[in-house]
């Protein structure tokens, strides 16, 4: 009980909570101004999420990539770096998984495992490139990340068109059934929601992230570099190799997003004009979750549910789903600018003090 009280007094707990409340309230105000009924909108949002087992399953499916994207960004943040290249790592992961799934024949289960490993490796190498450019040539990671995002996208286009094009469509051929990681009986249980092994792997990765960060030597080194590079160097750590290692892990987690989407959800890869945007959502997730395993889990659950529920909002209350994007943006704004919230709290405290006296 005391522990809970202490926890609630911590800024890292109440700043996200207040941000969420402010976001939802401002969303409601905007809906009112626009002539919509915010209560109906939010209740249909909630109804959409819990409306049927299918919806619950699909909400979970929405959450899985967000958790991974959040962790990928968070691990780089903890190391004092900014991975804005998760987008490209997702594409490379998808491509790796697709190539194994489509071009190679292997027995079931093994095929899926190999495809997952290759997908993660593709993403990891794509991530490591960013850190290598940074430590060897001093290239700012934000610039290389954004460039590599586009390079990855076009590599995927070329590869698909050259080897796996599905005639008459703008997508690749399907992966072989042996490479699918969808769990049929669970999907059936959830009325066809696309449930796959990635759900369980994600739980392991979340726990692994916590242990890596807080219990292992490598996590200690990563945090030391992130907090104070000079002190890490003084302590004899190899700052360059730690940066490369961190970006490799970050990229591998990003690669898994694409891997799971290809092997467990869509079974093919589209030749899209743009990347999915999940990697950018990961930045928001990591920010709100303050780069901790639990925080990332909670914030991705919130965002995933909001995204999925937004469809119900437009259906049930005729509110454009963009409103939810705005709500999320407001939450992120306040979570990323905690100074604004501290100011509110200070004003509030002073006011109540004055009323007392």
């Amino acid at each position: 009980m005391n522990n809970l009280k202490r926890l609630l007094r911590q800024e890292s707990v109440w700043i996200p909570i207040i941000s969420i409340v402010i976001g939802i309230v401002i969303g409601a105000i905007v809906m009112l101004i626009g002539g919509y009924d915010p209560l109906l909108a939010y209740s249909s949002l909630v109804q959409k999420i819990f409306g049927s087992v299918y919806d619950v399953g699909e909400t979970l499916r929405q959450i899985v990539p967000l958790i991974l994207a959040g962790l990928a960004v968070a691990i780089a943040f903890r190391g004092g770096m900014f991975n804005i290249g998760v987008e490209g790592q997702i594409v490379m992961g998808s491509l790796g998984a697709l190539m194994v799934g489509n071009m190679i024949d292997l027995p079931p289960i093994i095929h899926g495992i190999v495809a997952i490993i290759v997908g993660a490796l593709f993403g990891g190498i794509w991530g490591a490139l960013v850190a290598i450019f940074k430590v060897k040539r001093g290239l700012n990671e934000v610039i290389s990340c954004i460039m590599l995002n586009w390079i990855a996208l076009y590599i995927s286009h070329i590869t698909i068109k050259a080897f796996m094009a599905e005639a008459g469509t703008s997508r690749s051929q399907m992966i072989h059934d042996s490479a699918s990681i969808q769990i049929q009986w669970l999907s059936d249980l959830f009325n066809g929601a696309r449930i796959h092994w990635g759900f369980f792997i994600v739980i392991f990765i979340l726990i692994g992230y916590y242990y890596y960060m807080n219990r292992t030597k490598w996590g200690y080194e990563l945090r030391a570099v992130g907090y104070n590079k000079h002190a890490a160097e003084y302590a004899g750590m190899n700052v360059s190799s730690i940066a490369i290692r961190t970006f490799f892990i970050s990229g591998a987690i990003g690669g898994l997003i694409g891997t799971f989407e290809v092997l467990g959800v869509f079974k093919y890869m589209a030749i899209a004009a743009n990347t999915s945007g999940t990697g950018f959502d990961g930045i928001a997730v990591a920010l709100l979750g303050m780069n901790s395993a639990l925080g990332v889990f909670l914030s991705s659950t919130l965002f995933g549910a909001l995204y999925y529920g937004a469809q119900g909002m437009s259906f049930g209350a005729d509110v454009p789903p963009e409103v939810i994007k705005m709500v999320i943006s407001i939450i992120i704004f306040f979570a990323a600018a905690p100074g604004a919230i501290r100011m509110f709290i200070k004003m509030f405290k002073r006011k109540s003090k004055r009323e007392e006296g």
Partner: protein
Amino acid sequence: MAQPETVLELKGITKRFGEVVANEDISFALKKGEIHALLGENGAGKSTLMNIVFGLYQPTEGSIWVNGQEVLMDTPNRAIDLGIGMVHQHFKLVQPFTVTENIILGMEPKSGLRTDLKSASSKIRQLSEQYGLNVDPSAKIENISVGMQQRVEILKTLYRGADIVILDEPTAVLTPQEITELLAIMKRLASEGKSIIIITHKLKEIMEVADTCTIIRRGRVIDSVVVKDSSPRELAEKMVGREVRFKTDKSAADPKQPILSVKDLKVRGDNGQMAVDGLSFQVRAGEIVGVAGVDGNGQAELIEALTGMRRVEEGEIDLDGVNVVNKTPRVVGQSGMSHIPQDRHKHGLVLDFTVPENAILQTYYKPELTKGGLMDHNAAVSLAEKYVKSFDIRIPGLDVPVRAMSGGNQQKLIIAREIDRRPKVLIAAQPTRGLDVGAIEFVHKELIAERNNGKGVLLVSFELEEIMNVADRIIVLFNGQIVGETYPDQTNDQELGLMMAGRRQGGDSN
């Protein structure tokens, strides 16, 4: 002549942070035209008190009176309106801006839509002349020295109409010459009717410049004394609450075999110039070698090269028979070198790490602390507890970031960690920078104890007093070269001062 009026008075100020009492029932009076020193150890509550005066904190109890009127000091802007200016220890200046632009920032004089730089600039020039500050209003901050930047901060308070100027540890960042100039400026300001509060723990400066000195210990006022009727010893004892020894007790050194040999060492500085230019010297086991010199004569580069943090261009470094030239810091450390770095915030500690996490910074990978990649949290905690106990480190708790500890306690933690590595050679760079009398005494004792244990100690310091007190042998560095070697009992401040200015040994008399 009538008694000068009281311009600022604090009555019964108490400030609590939760359960911690930072200031307790402090009363304090500043007279017009007076230089009033606020003396106390790190963490005694001086800065908290001044932040209350400047409107950054609200007192829990007590009142503030300015020019005989009780005031509610709720924001720094209120303090500025009342004619109070504060120069912080870390300057708040925009580097690429000019002096004028920095001074008017936030209250730009307007002529129509444009900022009237011309009138501001001439007003600044006039103020600068009036108080002998000698500041060029059109110079860019990034191009002027630290001492000059500090004068810009002082000028900023004057420009905003300050009659009371608070200086927070103003000499910590200055060279000896700049300190002399600053003290002269303070006297000039006082003679022009400004009142000055100087927060410091340097007794010498107080004796030189202050009229009155208020001593604070553990949040309470111990005494307010007239400086000219007091002595450094009296002030120091009131500050730490017990007797202090200015001369460090130590037995004669008993140097054994050379344990660190440096030969013809050449190291480049950040600008590409040869910062260490052909250095040769030895440190023997059981000896403290003091490296004297003015900051910027190659000390930083020498230490970084010795500890593996900077590339050696040419030369040899022999650490008890092992060649450590261009080895990584880890390898150099494992070969028997410990290093108390000059900048404890930049290198010595990860400020956001807890005490145990910092205690294991150099050894976290060793089998006693990590097995198969998994760290043993309990081992780290018991190591930290050992350091805390044996070095009397005062901390709010093991699990708080070391950022929350005072400078002296942070330094104790570093020293505990570095000595515990059982080095053959201990490099101590400015080990007492920013520490108070009590902590300095402690650090010096530890260095001497290491020497008595048969370690070689290399002490790099810009404070002549420290070198003279602690070192067994002194080498003087100028422009990356050794210009003299001597012993504390065979030299004096004047001779060392001349060598530090570049005159080679034996150039005159003697």
